[in-house]
Protein backbone atom coordinates (compact mmCIF):
# COMPACT_ATOMS: atom_id res chain seq x y z
CA UNK A 1 0.00 0.00 0.00
CA UNK A 2 1.17 3.50 -0.69
CA UNK A 3 -0.57 5.03 2.30
CA UNK A 4 1.56 3.26 4.90
CA UNK A 5 4.93 4.99 4.44
CA UNK A 6 3.40 8.43 4.75
CA UNK A 7 3.34 8.15 8.54
CA UNK A 8 7.08 7.67 8.71
CA UNK A 9 7.68 10.37 6.15
CA UNK A 10 8.84 13.50 7.95
CA UNK A 11 7.28 15.69 5.28
CA UNK A 12 3.87 14.32 6.25
CA UNK A 13 4.03 16.53 9.31
CA UNK A 14 2.93 19.36 7.09
CA UNK A 15 0.07 17.67 5.34
CA UNK A 16 -1.55 20.86 4.09
CA UNK A 17 1.47 21.55 1.96
CA UNK A 18 1.14 18.23 0.23
CA UNK A 19 3.95 16.43 2.00
CA UNK A 20 4.32 13.00 0.52
CA UNK A 21 4.42 13.63 -3.22
CA UNK A 22 6.84 16.48 -2.81
CA UNK A 23 9.68 14.23 -1.88
CA UNK A 24 8.68 11.68 -4.46
CA UNK A 25 9.39 13.41 -7.72
CA UNK A 26 12.15 15.68 -8.96
CA UNK A 27 14.97 14.33 -6.94
CA UNK A 28 18.51 14.55 -8.12
CA UNK A 29 21.40 16.96 -7.82
CA UNK A 30 19.50 19.96 -9.20
CA UNK A 31 16.96 19.81 -6.45
CA UNK A 32 19.61 19.31 -3.80
CA UNK A 33 21.51 22.30 -5.10
CA UNK A 34 18.30 24.30 -4.92
CA UNK A 35 17.86 23.32 -1.27
CA UNK A 36 21.41 24.31 -0.46
CA UNK A 37 20.96 27.68 -2.17
CA UNK A 38 17.73 28.22 -0.23
CA UNK A 39 19.30 27.59 3.14
CA UNK A 40 22.36 29.62 2.23
CA UNK A 41 20.18 32.58 1.27
CA UNK A 42 18.20 32.26 4.51
CA UNK A 43 21.41 32.15 6.53
CA UNK A 44 22.74 35.25 4.75
CA UNK A 45 19.58 37.09 5.74
CA UNK A 46 19.32 35.64 9.23
CA UNK A 47 22.82 36.50 10.42
CA UNK A 48 22.45 40.30 10.23
CA UNK A 49 18.96 40.04 11.72
CA UNK A 50 20.05 38.00 14.72
CA UNK A 51 23.52 39.46 15.27
CA UNK A 52 22.32 42.60 17.09
CA UNK A 53 19.98 40.46 19.22
CA UNK A 54 22.93 38.31 20.19
CA UNK A 55 25.44 41.06 20.59
CA UNK A 56 23.35 43.20 22.93
CA UNK A 57 23.41 40.39 25.50
CA UNK A 58 26.94 39.21 24.74
CA UNK A 59 28.28 42.75 24.93
CA UNK A 60 26.34 43.51 28.10
CA UNK A 61 28.09 40.58 29.78
CA UNK A 62 31.58 41.37 28.57
CA UNK A 63 34.24 43.00 30.67
CA UNK A 64 34.79 46.66 29.82
CA UNK A 65 38.29 45.93 28.55
CA UNK A 66 36.91 43.28 26.18
CA UNK A 67 34.61 45.87 24.68
CA UNK A 68 37.47 48.31 24.34
CA UNK A 69 39.65 45.92 22.37
CA UNK A 70 40.07 46.35 18.65
CA UNK A 71 39.23 44.44 16.58
CA UNK A 72 36.25 43.82 18.83
CA UNK A 73 35.50 40.56 20.59
CA UNK A 74 32.33 38.82 19.55
CA UNK A 75 32.14 36.27 22.38
CA UNK A 76 32.53 37.21 26.05
CA UNK A 77 35.19 35.19 27.85
CA UNK A 78 32.92 34.87 30.86
CA UNK A 79 29.76 36.31 32.32
CA UNK A 80 30.64 39.63 33.88
CA UNK A 81 27.95 41.71 35.56
CA UNK A 82 30.15 44.85 35.58
CA UNK A 83 28.32 46.63 32.77
CA UNK A 84 24.89 45.84 34.15
CA UNK A 85 25.82 47.16 37.58
CA UNK A 86 27.47 50.25 36.13
CA UNK A 87 24.42 50.99 33.98
CA UNK A 88 22.14 50.70 36.99
CA UNK A 89 24.39 53.12 38.80
CA UNK A 90 24.80 55.65 36.01
CA UNK A 91 21.08 56.18 35.50
CA UNK A 92 18.23 55.17 37.86
CA UNK A 93 17.23 52.39 35.47
CA UNK A 94 15.12 50.53 38.02
CA UNK A 95 13.05 53.60 38.75
CA UNK A 96 12.70 54.13 34.99
CA UNK A 97 11.68 50.51 34.61
CA UNK A 98 8.92 51.22 37.10
CA UNK A 99 7.90 54.37 35.25
CA UNK A 100 7.69 52.51 31.96
CA UNK A 101 5.72 49.75 33.61
CA UNK A 102 3.24 52.16 35.18
CA UNK A 103 2.87 54.11 31.95
CA UNK A 104 2.45 51.09 29.66
CA UNK A 105 0.26 49.29 32.21
CA UNK A 106 -2.15 52.18 32.72
CA UNK A 107 -2.38 52.85 28.99
CA UNK A 108 -2.99 49.19 28.22
CA UNK A 109 -5.73 48.71 30.81
CA UNK A 110 -7.38 51.98 29.91
CA UNK A 111 -7.36 51.28 26.19
CA UNK A 112 -8.79 47.82 26.78
CA UNK A 113 -11.66 49.25 28.84
CA UNK A 114 -12.44 52.23 26.60
CA UNK A 115 -12.13 50.11 23.44
CA UNK A 116 -14.34 47.33 24.78
CA UNK A 117 -17.04 49.80 25.81
CA UNK A 118 -16.96 51.62 22.48
CA UNK A 119 -16.88 48.40 20.46
CA UNK A 120 -19.84 47.14 22.46
CA UNK A 121 -21.80 50.29 21.62
CA UNK A 122 -21.02 49.88 17.92
CA UNK A 123 -21.96 46.21 17.76
CA UNK A 124 -24.77 45.66 20.26
CA UNK A 125 -26.43 49.03 20.83
CA UNK A 126 -28.67 50.83 18.36
CA UNK A 127 -28.23 54.54 18.11
CA UNK A 128 -28.56 57.20 15.47
CA UNK A 129 -25.44 57.86 13.45
CA UNK A 130 -23.63 54.72 14.60
CA UNK A 131 -21.98 54.23 11.20
CA UNK A 132 -20.89 57.86 10.98
CA UNK A 133 -19.44 57.84 14.48
CA UNK A 134 -17.54 54.66 13.70
CA UNK A 135 -16.13 56.23 10.55
CA UNK A 136 -15.03 59.22 12.63
CA UNK A 137 -13.38 56.85 15.12
CA UNK A 138 -11.46 55.23 12.28
CA UNK A 139 -10.43 58.60 10.88
CA UNK A 140 -8.62 59.40 14.14
CA UNK A 141 -6.15 56.67 13.22
CA UNK A 142 -4.97 58.72 10.27
CA UNK A 143 -3.63 61.55 12.43
CA UNK A 144 0.06 61.13 13.23
CA UNK A 145 0.82 61.81 16.87
CA UNK A 146 3.58 64.22 15.88
CA UNK A 147 0.92 66.58 14.51
CA UNK A 148 -0.73 66.87 17.93
CA UNK A 149 2.23 66.73 20.30
CA UNK A 150 2.87 70.46 20.47
CA UNK A 151 -0.68 71.44 21.55
CA UNK A 152 -0.87 68.43 23.86
CA UNK A 153 2.38 69.46 25.44
CA UNK A 154 1.02 72.99 25.92
CA UNK A 155 -2.31 71.72 27.31
CA UNK A 156 -0.78 69.35 29.79
CA UNK A 157 1.94 71.76 30.90
CA UNK A 158 -0.80 74.34 31.32
CA UNK A 159 -2.57 71.95 33.67
CA UNK A 160 0.64 71.49 35.60
CA UNK A 161 0.90 67.89 34.42
CA UNK A 162 4.28 68.07 32.69
CA UNK A 163 6.69 65.63 34.30
CA UNK A 164 3.91 63.55 35.92
CA UNK A 165 2.45 60.12 35.29
CA UNK A 166 -0.83 61.75 34.30
CA UNK A 167 0.97 63.78 31.67
CA UNK A 168 2.62 60.65 30.32
CA UNK A 169 -0.57 58.65 29.87
CA UNK A 170 -3.49 61.05 29.37
CA UNK A 171 -3.34 61.48 25.57
CA UNK A 172 -3.20 57.71 25.10
CA UNK A 173 -6.02 56.52 27.34
CA UNK A 174 -8.14 55.72 24.29
CA UNK A 175 -7.16 54.74 20.77
CA UNK A 176 -9.43 53.69 17.95
CA UNK A 177 -7.30 50.75 16.86
CA UNK A 178 -8.47 48.68 19.83
CA UNK A 179 -12.09 49.61 19.18
CA UNK A 180 -11.67 48.56 15.56
CA UNK A 181 -10.15 45.21 16.47
CA UNK A 182 -12.62 44.40 19.25
CA UNK A 183 -15.55 45.39 17.07
CA UNK A 184 -14.42 42.77 14.55
CA UNK A 185 -14.32 40.19 17.30
CA UNK A 186 -17.63 41.16 18.96
CA UNK A 187 -19.42 40.93 15.63
CA UNK A 188 -18.68 37.23 15.50
CA UNK A 189 -20.43 36.68 18.78
CA UNK A 190 -23.52 34.48 18.24
CA UNK A 191 -26.53 36.72 18.13
CA UNK A 192 -28.76 34.05 19.73
CA UNK A 193 -26.65 34.05 22.87
CA UNK A 194 -26.97 37.81 23.11
CA UNK A 195 -30.74 37.65 22.61
CA UNK A 196 -31.07 34.90 25.20
CA UNK A 197 -29.08 36.84 27.75
CA UNK A 198 -31.15 39.93 27.14
CA UNK A 199 -34.40 37.94 27.39
CA UNK A 200 -33.24 36.72 30.77
CA UNK A 201 -33.06 40.35 31.78
CA UNK A 202 -29.29 40.58 31.87
CA UNK A 203 -28.09 44.19 31.75
CA UNK A 204 -25.70 45.37 29.06
CA UNK A 205 -22.80 45.96 31.42
CA UNK A 206 -23.21 42.60 33.06
CA UNK A 207 -23.47 40.87 29.71
CA UNK A 208 -20.35 42.65 28.52
CA UNK A 209 -18.38 41.83 31.64
CA UNK A 210 -19.52 38.28 32.44
CA UNK A 211 -20.21 36.83 28.99
CA UNK A 212 -18.60 38.80 26.20
CA UNK A 213 -15.25 39.65 27.77
CA UNK A 214 -14.40 36.09 28.87
CA UNK A 215 -15.37 34.76 25.44
CA UNK A 216 -13.37 37.43 23.62
CA UNK A 217 -10.17 36.80 25.50
CA UNK A 218 -8.01 36.10 22.40
CA UNK A 219 -8.96 39.42 20.82
CA UNK A 220 -8.51 41.30 24.09
CA UNK A 221 -5.11 39.70 24.57
CA UNK A 222 -4.11 40.65 21.04
CA UNK A 223 -5.05 44.27 21.68
CA UNK A 224 -3.43 44.24 25.11
CA UNK A 225 -0.10 42.82 23.95
CA UNK A 226 0.03 45.20 21.03
CA UNK A 227 -0.80 48.27 23.10
CA UNK A 228 1.65 47.29 25.82
CA UNK A 229 4.57 46.85 23.45
CA UNK A 230 3.90 50.05 21.53
CA UNK A 231 3.47 52.18 24.65
CA UNK A 232 6.44 50.56 26.42
CA UNK A 233 8.49 51.53 23.36
CA UNK A 234 7.15 55.10 23.04
CA UNK A 235 9.88 57.67 22.63
CA UNK A 236 8.83 61.08 21.34
CA UNK A 237 6.08 61.87 23.85
CA UNK A 238 7.93 60.76 27.01
CA UNK A 239 10.95 62.69 25.78
CA UNK A 240 9.12 66.01 25.66
CA UNK A 241 6.69 65.64 28.58
CA UNK A 242 9.20 64.47 31.21
CA UNK A 243 12.06 66.51 32.60
CA UNK A 244 13.43 64.90 35.77
CA UNK A 245 15.28 61.61 35.68
CA UNK A 246 12.88 60.26 38.29
CA UNK A 247 9.94 60.61 35.89
CA UNK A 248 11.68 59.50 32.71
CA UNK A 249 10.82 56.19 31.11
CA UNK A 250 13.34 53.49 30.30
CA UNK A 251 13.54 54.50 26.64
CA UNK A 252 14.55 58.03 27.55
CA UNK A 253 16.96 56.62 30.12
CA UNK A 254 18.71 54.74 27.32
CA UNK A 255 19.34 58.02 25.57
CA UNK A 256 20.61 59.52 28.84
CA UNK A 257 23.10 56.65 29.07
CA UNK A 258 24.39 57.65 25.68
CA UNK A 259 24.66 61.36 26.30
CA UNK A 260 25.74 61.10 29.94
CA UNK A 261 28.77 58.86 30.06
CA UNK A 262 31.12 59.45 27.17
CA UNK A 263 29.55 56.77 24.96
CA UNK A 264 30.65 53.79 27.00
CA UNK A 265 29.47 50.86 24.88
CA UNK A 266 29.22 48.54 27.87
CA UNK A 267 26.70 50.77 29.63
CA UNK A 268 24.68 51.23 26.47
CA UNK A 269 24.46 47.53 25.72
CA UNK A 270 23.65 46.70 29.32
CA UNK A 271 20.87 49.28 29.39
CA UNK A 272 19.47 48.09 26.08
CA UNK A 273 19.63 44.46 27.21
CA UNK A 274 17.74 45.23 30.40
CA UNK A 275 15.17 47.34 28.59
CA UNK A 276 14.37 44.77 25.95
CA UNK A 277 13.82 41.79 28.26
CA UNK A 278 10.06 42.28 28.88
CA UNK A 279 9.14 42.89 25.26
CA UNK A 280 11.42 40.10 24.08
CA UNK A 281 9.59 37.74 26.43
CA UNK A 282 6.25 38.98 25.10
CA UNK A 283 7.32 38.54 21.50
CA UNK A 284 8.61 35.03 22.11
CA UNK A 285 5.73 33.84 24.26
CA UNK A 286 2.87 35.78 22.73
CA UNK A 287 3.73 35.78 19.06
CA UNK A 288 0.36 34.29 18.15
CA UNK A 289 -1.40 37.30 19.65
CA UNK A 290 1.03 39.78 18.23
CA UNK A 291 0.51 38.43 14.75
CA UNK A 292 -3.21 38.86 15.23
CA UNK A 293 -2.97 42.39 16.51
CA UNK A 294 -0.38 43.55 14.03
CA UNK A 295 -1.85 42.10 10.92
CA UNK A 296 -5.47 42.95 11.61
CA UNK A 297 -5.43 45.62 8.95
CA UNK A 298 -3.55 43.56 6.42
CA UNK A 299 -5.46 40.30 6.30
CA UNK A 300 -9.15 40.19 5.90
Amino acid at each position, binding site marked *: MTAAPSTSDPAAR*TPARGGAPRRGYRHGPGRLLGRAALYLALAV*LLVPVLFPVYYVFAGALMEPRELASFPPRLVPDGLHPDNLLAALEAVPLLRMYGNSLVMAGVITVSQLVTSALAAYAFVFLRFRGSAVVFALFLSTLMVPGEATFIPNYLTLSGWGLADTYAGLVLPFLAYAFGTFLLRQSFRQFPRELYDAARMDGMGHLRFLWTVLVPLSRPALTAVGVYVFITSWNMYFWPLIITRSTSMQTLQIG*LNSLKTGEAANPGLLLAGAALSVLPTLALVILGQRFIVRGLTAGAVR
Partner: protein
Amino acid sequence: MSSPTILHGGGSGVPSGTAAPAPAASTPAPRGRRRERGREAALAWAFLAPSVAVFALFLLYPLGRTLYLSLHGNDIIGRPDRFVGLSHFAEMATPEFGGVLLTTLLFTLGVVVPGVVGALAVVLLLEGVVRGQRLLRGAFALPFAFSVASASVIFSVFYSPGNSVLNGILYQLGLDQVPWLTSQEMALWSVCVTTVWMNLGYGVLVLAAGIGSIPKEINEAARIDGATGPRLARDVTVPMLGPQLFFLVVISTINALQSFGQIHILTNGGPVGSTTTLVYSIYQYAFAYGTSDFGRASAQALVLLLVVLVCTAVQFGVLERKVHYA
Protein backbone atom coordinates in the same frame (compact mmCIF):
# COMPACT_ATOMS: atom_id res chain seq x y z
CA MET B 1 -13.55 31.80 18.97
CA SER B 2 -11.84 29.06 17.04
CA SER B 3 -11.25 30.40 13.57
CA PRO B 4 -12.24 34.01 13.22
CA THR B 5 -11.37 34.36 9.57
CA ILE B 6 -13.67 31.55 8.53
CA LEU B 7 -16.53 32.84 10.63
CA HIS B 8 -15.83 36.20 9.19
CA GLY B 9 -15.94 35.24 5.56
CA GLY B 10 -18.79 32.79 5.83
CA GLY B 11 -20.99 35.02 7.90
CA SER B 12 -22.82 38.08 6.78
CA GLY B 13 -20.37 39.23 4.15
CA VAL B 14 -19.37 42.08 6.46
CA PRO B 15 -19.29 45.14 4.25
CA SER B 16 -16.67 47.45 5.65
CA GLY B 17 -17.76 50.65 7.26
CA THR B 18 -21.37 49.86 7.94
CA ALA B 19 -22.54 49.09 11.43
CA ALA B 20 -23.82 45.67 12.33
CA PRO B 21 -27.57 45.30 12.17
CA ALA B 22 -28.77 45.74 15.70
CA PRO B 23 -30.47 42.80 17.36
CA ALA B 24 -34.09 42.56 16.31
CA ALA B 25 -35.50 43.01 19.75
CA SER B 26 -39.10 41.88 19.70
CA THR B 27 -40.31 44.43 22.17
CA PRO B 28 -44.04 44.51 22.88
CA ALA B 29 -45.64 47.95 22.91
CA PRO B 30 -44.51 50.75 20.55
CA ARG B 31 -44.25 53.24 23.40
CA GLY B 32 -42.16 51.00 25.56
CA ARG B 33 -40.08 50.21 22.54
CA ARG B 34 -39.44 53.86 21.90
CA ARG B 35 -38.33 54.41 25.45
CA GLU B 36 -36.21 51.29 25.24
CA ARG B 37 -34.53 52.70 22.14
CA GLY B 38 -33.88 56.01 23.80
CA ARG B 39 -32.28 54.27 26.73
CA GLU B 40 -30.18 52.16 24.41
CA ALA B 41 -28.92 55.23 22.59
CA ALA B 42 -28.12 56.97 25.86
CA LEU B 43 -26.22 53.91 27.01
CA ALA B 44 -24.34 53.77 23.71
CA TRP B 45 -23.18 57.34 24.14
CA ALA B 46 -22.20 56.64 27.72
CA PHE B 47 -20.06 53.76 26.46
CA LEU B 48 -18.52 55.92 23.77
CA ALA B 49 -17.98 58.88 26.08
CA PRO B 50 -14.52 57.98 27.44
CA SER B 51 -13.10 57.46 23.95
CA VAL B 52 -14.82 60.53 22.57
CA ALA B 53 -13.51 62.64 25.44
CA VAL B 54 -9.91 61.55 24.83
CA PHE B 55 -10.19 62.08 21.07
CA ALA B 56 -11.79 65.49 21.48
CA LEU B 57 -9.27 66.71 24.03
CA PHE B 58 -6.06 65.23 22.70
CA LEU B 59 -6.70 64.88 19.00
CA LEU B 60 -9.40 67.16 17.65
CA TYR B 61 -8.67 70.20 19.77
CA PRO B 62 -4.90 69.90 19.17
CA LEU B 63 -5.47 69.84 15.42
CA GLY B 64 -7.34 73.11 15.67
CA ARG B 65 -4.70 74.55 17.94
CA THR B 66 -1.91 73.43 15.61
CA LEU B 67 -3.64 75.32 12.83
CA TYR B 68 -3.98 78.37 15.08
CA LEU B 69 -0.34 78.21 16.16
CA SER B 70 0.81 77.80 12.56
CA LEU B 71 -0.77 81.16 11.71
CA HIS B 72 0.88 82.97 14.61
CA GLY B 73 4.30 84.14 15.58
CA ASN B 74 5.42 83.57 19.14
CA ASP B 75 7.58 85.10 21.80
CA ILE B 76 10.72 83.54 23.20
CA ILE B 77 8.85 81.10 25.46
CA GLY B 78 6.46 80.02 22.75
CA ARG B 79 3.37 82.10 23.50
CA PRO B 80 1.64 83.18 20.30
CA ASP B 81 1.82 86.96 20.20
CA ARG B 82 0.98 88.05 16.67
CA PHE B 83 -0.97 86.90 13.64
CA VAL B 84 1.36 86.19 10.75
CA GLY B 85 -1.05 84.65 8.25
CA LEU B 86 0.56 82.09 5.99
CA SER B 87 4.06 83.42 6.30
CA HIS B 88 5.28 80.32 8.14
CA PHE B 89 4.16 78.32 5.14
CA ALA B 90 5.65 80.81 2.71
CA GLU B 91 8.96 80.54 4.58
CA MET B 92 9.06 76.88 3.67
CA ALA B 93 10.01 77.79 0.13
CA THR B 94 13.67 77.81 1.06
CA PRO B 95 16.51 75.52 0.05
CA GLU B 96 16.82 74.61 3.71
CA PHE B 97 13.30 73.25 4.05
CA GLY B 98 13.58 71.75 0.58
CA GLY B 99 16.55 69.86 1.95
CA VAL B 100 14.47 68.63 4.86
CA LEU B 101 11.81 67.34 2.48
CA LEU B 102 14.43 65.69 0.28
CA THR B 103 15.98 64.01 3.33
CA THR B 104 12.53 62.81 4.37
CA LEU B 105 11.93 61.38 0.90
CA LEU B 106 15.32 59.66 0.73
CA PHE B 107 14.90 58.28 4.24
CA THR B 108 11.43 56.96 3.39
CA LEU B 109 12.69 55.27 0.22
CA GLY B 110 15.73 53.93 2.05
CA VAL B 111 13.50 52.34 4.65
CA VAL B 112 10.49 51.18 2.65
CA VAL B 113 12.16 49.63 -0.39
CA PRO B 114 14.72 47.41 1.39
CA GLY B 115 12.24 46.69 4.17
CA VAL B 116 9.49 45.40 1.90
CA VAL B 117 11.82 43.61 -0.51
CA GLY B 118 13.68 42.03 2.42
CA ALA B 119 10.51 40.86 4.12
CA LEU B 120 9.21 39.43 0.86
CA ALA B 121 12.49 37.60 0.25
CA VAL B 122 12.36 36.14 3.75
CA VAL B 123 8.79 34.84 3.54
CA LEU B 124 9.29 33.42 0.05
CA LEU B 125 12.44 31.62 1.15
CA LEU B 126 10.66 30.38 4.26
CA GLU B 127 7.98 28.85 2.05
CA GLY B 128 10.58 26.44 0.75
CA VAL B 129 11.54 25.30 4.24
CA VAL B 130 9.86 22.08 5.24
CA ARG B 131 10.89 21.74 8.86
CA GLY B 132 11.43 24.50 11.38
CA GLN B 133 9.57 27.08 9.33
CA ARG B 134 7.77 28.55 12.34
CA LEU B 135 10.93 28.71 14.38
CA LEU B 136 12.77 30.51 11.61
CA ARG B 137 9.94 32.95 11.11
CA GLY B 138 9.99 33.64 14.83
CA ALA B 139 13.72 34.31 14.64
CA PHE B 140 13.21 36.84 11.86
CA ALA B 141 10.48 38.50 13.92
CA LEU B 142 12.67 38.96 17.02
CA PRO B 143 13.82 42.54 16.27
CA PHE B 144 10.19 43.57 16.65
CA ALA B 145 10.74 43.35 20.42
CA PHE B 146 13.34 46.10 20.27
CA SER B 147 12.18 49.62 20.91
CA VAL B 148 13.41 52.48 18.79
CA ALA B 149 15.61 53.53 21.68
CA SER B 150 17.18 50.13 22.35
CA ALA B 151 17.77 49.42 18.66
CA SER B 152 19.31 52.84 18.17
CA VAL B 153 21.54 52.47 21.21
CA ILE B 154 22.78 49.08 19.98
CA PHE B 155 23.48 50.42 16.51
CA SER B 156 25.22 53.44 17.98
CA VAL B 157 27.69 50.96 19.47
CA PHE B 158 28.02 49.25 16.09
CA TYR B 159 28.61 52.56 14.37
CA SER B 160 30.74 54.31 16.95
CA PRO B 161 33.87 55.76 15.34
CA GLY B 162 36.36 54.47 17.89
CA ASN B 163 36.14 50.79 18.70
CA SER B 164 33.09 50.04 16.62
CA VAL B 165 31.99 46.51 15.93
CA LEU B 166 31.19 47.06 12.27
CA ASN B 167 34.49 48.73 11.48
CA GLY B 168 36.23 46.00 13.41
CA ILE B 169 34.65 43.37 11.20
CA LEU B 170 35.56 45.38 8.10
CA TYR B 171 39.11 45.68 9.40
CA GLN B 172 39.39 41.94 9.85
CA LEU B 173 38.11 41.43 6.34
CA GLY B 174 40.78 43.84 5.15
CA LEU B 175 38.27 46.47 4.07
CA ASP B 176 38.30 50.22 4.58
CA GLN B 177 36.70 51.80 7.62
CA VAL B 178 33.34 53.47 7.05
CA PRO B 179 32.39 56.79 8.72
CA TRP B 180 28.95 55.43 9.54
CA LEU B 181 27.45 58.41 11.33
CA THR B 182 30.09 61.05 10.90
CA SER B 183 29.91 61.67 7.18
CA GLN B 184 27.10 63.58 5.56
CA GLU B 185 26.87 61.01 2.78
CA MET B 186 26.67 57.95 5.04
CA ALA B 187 24.70 59.04 8.10
CA LEU B 188 21.22 58.88 6.57
CA TRP B 189 21.81 55.38 5.19
CA SER B 190 23.15 54.20 8.53
CA VAL B 191 19.94 55.41 10.18
CA CYS B 192 17.98 53.65 7.42
CA VAL B 193 19.79 50.37 8.13
CA THR B 194 18.85 50.61 11.81
CA THR B 195 15.24 51.30 10.89
CA VAL B 196 15.05 48.46 8.39
CA TRP B 197 16.45 46.10 11.01
CA MET B 198 13.82 47.23 13.52
CA ASN B 199 10.92 46.90 11.09
CA LEU B 200 11.82 43.75 9.20
CA GLY B 201 10.08 41.49 11.70
CA TYR B 202 6.81 43.32 11.28
CA GLY B 203 6.96 42.94 7.51
CA VAL B 204 7.73 39.24 7.84
CA LEU B 205 4.75 38.73 10.15
CA VAL B 206 2.36 40.63 7.86
CA LEU B 207 3.45 38.81 4.71
CA ALA B 208 3.57 35.42 6.42
CA ALA B 209 -0.01 35.95 7.57
CA GLY B 210 -0.86 36.84 3.98
CA ILE B 211 0.70 33.63 2.68
CA GLY B 212 -1.22 31.71 5.32
CA SER B 213 -4.46 33.15 3.96
CA ILE B 214 -3.82 31.98 0.38
CA PRO B 215 -6.26 29.11 -0.26
CA LYS B 216 -4.42 25.79 -0.21
CA GLU B 217 -6.18 24.65 -3.37
CA ILE B 218 -4.43 27.35 -5.36
CA ASN B 219 -0.99 26.11 -4.31
CA GLU B 220 -2.04 22.52 -4.87
CA ALA B 221 -3.32 23.29 -8.35
CA ALA B 222 -0.15 25.14 -9.23
CA ARG B 223 1.98 22.26 -7.93
CA ILE B 224 0.03 19.74 -9.96
CA ASP B 225 0.70 21.91 -12.99
CA GLY B 226 4.38 21.54 -12.16
CA ALA B 227 5.09 24.96 -10.65
CA THR B 228 7.66 24.72 -7.88
CA GLY B 229 10.14 26.90 -6.09
CA PRO B 230 10.87 30.19 -7.82
CA ARG B 231 8.13 29.76 -10.43
CA LEU B 232 5.49 29.10 -7.80
CA ALA B 233 6.66 32.17 -5.93
CA ARG B 234 6.69 34.40 -8.98
CA ASP B 235 3.46 33.28 -10.64
CA VAL B 236 1.28 32.42 -7.66
CA THR B 237 2.49 33.58 -4.26
CA VAL B 238 3.59 37.14 -5.08
CA PRO B 239 0.48 38.03 -7.08
CA MET B 240 -1.71 36.58 -4.35
CA LEU B 241 0.16 38.69 -1.79
CA GLY B 242 -0.75 41.89 -3.61
CA PRO B 243 -3.02 43.35 -0.93
CA GLN B 244 -0.58 42.57 1.90
CA LEU B 245 2.38 43.98 -0.02
CA PHE B 246 0.44 47.13 -0.70
CA PHE B 247 -0.59 47.42 2.94
CA LEU B 248 3.01 46.92 4.00
CA VAL B 249 4.27 49.61 1.62
CA VAL B 250 1.75 52.15 2.92
CA ILE B 251 2.24 51.34 6.61
CA SER B 252 6.02 51.35 6.23
CA THR B 253 5.82 54.69 4.46
CA ILE B 254 3.70 56.20 7.22
CA ASN B 255 6.03 54.77 9.87
CA ALA B 256 9.08 56.11 8.06
CA LEU B 257 7.53 59.56 7.83
CA GLN B 258 6.99 59.50 11.59
CA SER B 259 10.41 58.13 12.53
CA PHE B 260 12.03 60.13 15.26
CA GLY B 261 13.82 58.18 17.99
CA GLN B 262 16.54 56.67 15.81
CA ILE B 263 17.46 60.09 14.45
CA HIS B 264 17.38 61.69 17.89
CA ILE B 265 19.64 59.03 19.39
CA LEU B 266 21.98 58.28 16.49
CA THR B 267 22.61 61.61 14.81
CA ASN B 268 20.57 64.45 16.34
CA GLY B 269 19.69 65.37 12.78
CA GLY B 270 23.32 65.85 11.78
CA PRO B 271 25.97 65.95 10.60
CA VAL B 272 25.14 69.35 9.12
CA GLY B 273 21.43 68.59 8.98
CA SER B 274 21.97 65.60 6.68
CA THR B 275 19.56 63.45 8.71
CA THR B 276 17.01 66.13 9.62
CA THR B 277 13.70 64.76 8.42
CA LEU B 278 10.36 66.55 8.67
CA VAL B 279 9.53 65.12 12.10
CA TYR B 280 12.98 65.91 13.39
CA SER B 281 12.71 69.44 12.07
CA ILE B 282 9.39 69.85 13.92
CA TYR B 283 11.05 68.63 17.09
CA GLN B 284 14.00 70.98 16.66
CA TYR B 285 11.87 74.06 16.17
CA ALA B 286 9.54 73.22 19.03
CA PHE B 287 11.61 71.53 21.70
CA ALA B 288 15.33 71.40 21.02
CA TYR B 289 17.76 74.09 22.13
CA GLY B 290 14.98 75.88 24.02
CA THR B 291 13.80 77.64 20.89
CA SER B 292 10.08 76.97 21.50
CA ASP B 293 9.22 78.17 18.00
CA PHE B 294 5.81 76.55 18.13
CA GLY B 295 4.52 78.59 15.19
CA ARG B 296 7.01 77.30 12.65
CA ALA B 297 6.93 73.81 14.14
CA SER B 298 3.13 73.72 13.89
CA ALA B 299 3.18 74.79 10.26
CA GLN B 300 5.57 71.92 9.55
CA ALA B 301 3.41 69.57 11.59
CA LEU B 302 0.51 70.41 9.28
CA VAL B 303 2.66 69.52 6.28
CA LEU B 304 3.42 66.20 7.93
CA LEU B 305 -0.27 65.67 8.64
CA LEU B 306 -1.11 66.36 5.02
CA VAL B 307 1.49 63.91 3.70
CA VAL B 308 0.34 61.17 6.08
CA LEU B 309 -3.32 61.81 5.22
CA VAL B 310 -2.57 61.46 1.51
CA CYS B 311 -0.81 58.14 2.15
CA THR B 312 -3.72 56.87 4.22
CA ALA B 313 -6.27 58.04 1.69
CA VAL B 314 -4.41 56.20 -1.06
CA GLN B 315 -4.38 53.10 1.10
CA PHE B 316 -8.09 53.24 1.85
CA GLY B 317 -8.95 54.00 -1.76
CA VAL B 318 -6.98 51.10 -3.18
CA LEU B 319 -7.88 48.64 -0.44
CA GLU B 320 -11.59 49.37 -0.79
CA ARG B 321 -11.32 48.57 -4.50
CA LYS B 322 -9.38 45.41 -3.81
CA VAL B 323 -11.88 44.14 -1.27
CA HIS B 324 -14.56 43.88 -3.89
CA TYR B 325 -12.89 41.52 -6.23
CA ALA B 326 -10.48 39.80 -3.88
